[in-house]
């Protein structure tokens, strides 16, 4: 199966790979995994006091589509409010990367990673 050019671009030059301190109260961490393929994805967002995502980092172990989906998401969420980021749909990710149907779950994983990170942020805020 051939990867689209956009997937290859993100796969070969992934944006924003890295880690942040997960104990930092302004850092939200979303960890998700896909048992079917064993992919593991970590998305971290640095969120300002007024709820704007200032920076995003990811680390993904998985196929090219999973890496591309998470790389793309880090580009998309930067500068957005957490509410706006929470509205990013997997279909938009899949469309942007031209993912074939068998790889749609990679985009779902990336959407779930954003949601998990936002959940983590909210639970940190309520403490």
């Amino acid at each position, binding site marked *: 199966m051939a990867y689209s050019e956009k997937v290859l671009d993100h796969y070969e030059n992934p944006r924003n790979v890295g880690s942040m301190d997960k104990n930092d109260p302004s850092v939200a*961490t979303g*960890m*998700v*995994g*896909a*048992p*079917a*393929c*064993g992919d*593991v994805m*970590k998305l971290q967002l640095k969120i300002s006091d007024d709820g704007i995502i200032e920076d995003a980092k990811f*680390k993904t*172990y998985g196929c090219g589509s999973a890496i591309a989906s998470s790389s793309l998401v880090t580009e998309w969420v930067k500068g957005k409010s957490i509410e706006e980021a929470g509205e990013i749909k997997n279909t938009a990710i899949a469309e942007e990367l031209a993912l074939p149907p068998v790889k749609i*779950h990679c985009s*779902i*994983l990336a959407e*779930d*990673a954003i949601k*998990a990170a936002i959940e*983590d942020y909210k639970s940190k805020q309520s403490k």
Partner: protein
Amino acid sequence: MNYFQLFNIEVSFDVDLQQLSSNYQTLQKAVHPDKFAHASEQEQRIAVQKSAHINDAYQTLKNPLQRAQYILVQRGVEMPNEQHSFQDTSFLMRQMELREMLEDVRHSGDVDAALLEVQSVLSTEYIELSQIMRTQISENNAASNSAACDNLRKLKFYQKLNVEVDRLEDSLLDD
């Protein structure tokens, strides 16, 4: 007839693989195409279908994770969709660490020792988790079945890691 009945063995996570294999061969002999060389087209077709069914059953029961899944599905335990993402943070953090450990093997001073270390860590964690699941499957109540299902999903991450380890081992041999 379920797969266990087909092989005339008890429904259990513990399967005697030798017995399974010998029962498999006996069953396959009975439907071997040579036996149906002079049979009607319909009988030949049925024999081929039976042979495929026996093969599916054998492959399912031979593999521990597939066997566990089969038992749970037979009990009517609702398996979460495999595509659904898994969100047990501490488990996934550990999976990340294990993958990082595997990634570092290649750059280690003593590659063989580092690879052995990873294999031993993975095998210890896999066995531990798989023993817990085995107990949960044998308890067979709603709570234990659902917990077994959760652990089965976790074990699949280890299964994937083991594939990666094998791949790394092969690539190291080629170097």
